[in-house]
């Protein structure tokens, strides 16, 4: 409370650097191969605005795609599992991205990655 009062309800965002070299760009390539319309996305956010799941959580397909393109896939592992596949985003998308298939492909690619990581660990 005190802190809030001090900064009038605002806070300072910490500086954050994206280390492209440390990130995993392969997954984005795999997904783009499986669903090429990913490359059409302009990150306008219309999908996130209409999202059914987005009404209940902070799930945002726009953010997922942004992180995916940056290669920051660690935080994405369980993100798309919130999607109900209702298809609203696909209808509103101005770039005609096949968002439903995209979500499925993201889920599968991350799952495969998890699987391969697990098998590496057990070895």
């Amino acid at each position, binding site marked *: 409370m005190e802190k809030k009062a001090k900064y009038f309800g605002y806070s300072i965002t910490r500086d954050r650097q994206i280390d492209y070299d440390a990130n995993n760009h392969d997954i984005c390539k795999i997904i783009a191969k499986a669903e090429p*319309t990913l490359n059409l996305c302009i990150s306008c956010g219309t999908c996130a605005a*209409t999202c*059914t*799941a987005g*009404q*209940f*959580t902070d799930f945002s397909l726009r953010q997922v795609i942004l992180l995916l393109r940056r290669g920051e896939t660690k935080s994405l592992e*369980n993100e*798309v*599992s*919130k*999607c*109900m*596949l*209702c*298809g*609203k985003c*696909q*209808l*509103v998308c101005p770039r*005609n991205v*096949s968002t*439903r*298939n995209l979500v*499925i492909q993201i*889920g*599968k690619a991350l*799952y*495969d990655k998890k*699987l391969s990581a697990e098998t590496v660990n057990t070895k």
Partner: protein
Amino acid sequence: MTFDLFVLPFFIGLLFLLGVLVVKYSRWIAMMDASDRVKAGMALFSFNLLKTVNEIFLESLLHRRMFKRNPLLGYMHMSFALGWFLLIVMGNIESRVYSGGHINPPYYPIFLKFFIHDKRVLPFEIFTLPGFFRFTMDLILLFVLSGLVLAVIKRTRSKWFGLKRTTVHNSFDRWAITSLWLIFPMRLLAESFTAGIYKGGGFLTNTLGSIFDAILPLEYMAYPAWWAYSTMLGIFFVTLPWSRFMHIPTEIILIFLRNAGIDQGKYPGSFSEIEIRSCPRCGVCIDVCQMNQAGLTGSTAVYFIRSLREKLPEVQLNSNCMMCGRCLEVCPVGIDTLGLRIGARGVDNKGFASDFTYLVNQPIVEKKAEVVYFAGCMGHLTPGVKRAMLQIFEKAKIDFTFLDEDGSVCCGRPLKLAGMKEASLTLISENSAKIKNTEAKILVTSCPICYKVFNDDYQLDGIQVMHHSVFIYNLVKDGKLVLRQTDLKAVYHDPCELGRGSGIYEQPRNVLKQIAEVADVSEERVNSLCCGGSIGDLNMDAVKRNLIRDKALTILCESQPDILVTACPLCKKTFDSGNATVVKDIAEVVAENLALNKLHKQTVDMVKL
């Protein structure tokens, strides 16, 4: 003489086929759920068996559904199936009569004319009609051959048979069909040659025999002809279990299991395996499939099922289907193509984990009412439909509560169509609890996709599920809504999930007829087209979807209507982007043309006069 070396190709082929079938059948029985096995066992000893036998006769032999599709196509299939069946039955009776009632080895009736040259008096009085068997067997053979002639013609003139496109077969099927086609001409030749030598045979073989006898050295040709006949039978039997003709022994099992009340259940399971092998690849489903318009002929039901059977399932092939159900409607075997597709997708999408824990503890609509309205995700994307429904509720003074006014939880159908059954069940239970909490008697939804899943998968404890078109129809029928006749010319588009999926065709049409003049469309009701926007497809991009949409729009707007009316928000949204004509939902049309009351309607009508 009851044996000759030439029977061996046939006999070995037959034994091989029977062996393979026994192995396959026992594997299917072993794969079955215990409860299904009990059901199947019970069905063996019930009156249901008569129904099954009747259906097998009508479908597997007479090919009734094929006849409905196209008489020529039906006749072709019937002549092969029924003709061959009759040849076997009559041949057996004939051989029994000749051998004085003894049981003969299985090849004996098939090659009877080789062993016996009919010049004797028969032992049974009833069959002493001169030449009874000779005549009948020749007649049946002619019947089969007539079908063969049609089958050859069909290769180049498939349009005469109601098929624009036919299945492109793989080499294995070609082997099987070549041997099948050669069986009967070889039989004719072998029997004619023998008849020519011994002057036996019926009207067909005897005549041909005498002609051949005049020009050919028959004594050298008859024996090789019998060898050729036997070899063709042998090749056919050996190739059968891996070719499309596996449908002959499998379809019978499928009909039996279906009548025993067994359904697809888990995938892959024995029922789905049997369904996959019951597909004769007749190709009736190819023409009706709208994927053709998107250049995706490869993902039509026949090729999809073949890929499952060859264990080469491709993700693209599985997911490229709008699940409109047009193939289901025309399939002469009644294979649940959509169920198979959902099953195959389930395997593809296994890695996709859903997690809806965030839905727990969401606020519930507290208002109780007689009627609960669920707009659905697509309903929210077409606010016009939602507004129209609210207006209608108000006008008809309905005590209602709006379940998803602040946004809906998806009904679960899209997940189900993607093969994610477990995930869809979470949403189903979530929504069920919300719906039951309103203590309503009627659940009205604007979206046929939701409507279908509410009906099929929800356990709503007696709450009646209604699509808004049916609800409006009932209101109009009860006089709670009065509609104004306009001079609009309209066409009605049947949404897939509402029409073929749920069997609702007439109510929306009847409502529309009270407002506008409804023109017929060449493809409507069960043959209605998919709009192209279907959420059933997981893969197709917008360009291909637009091709399908535009073709559908061309057919719908043939009569140049003022307005295209549909009853599905998704169809509306898809067609609207096609810019062919004004597209409206039935609810919107009704809301725009509400008369104040009967008196007002009469006055308006009179003013018009």
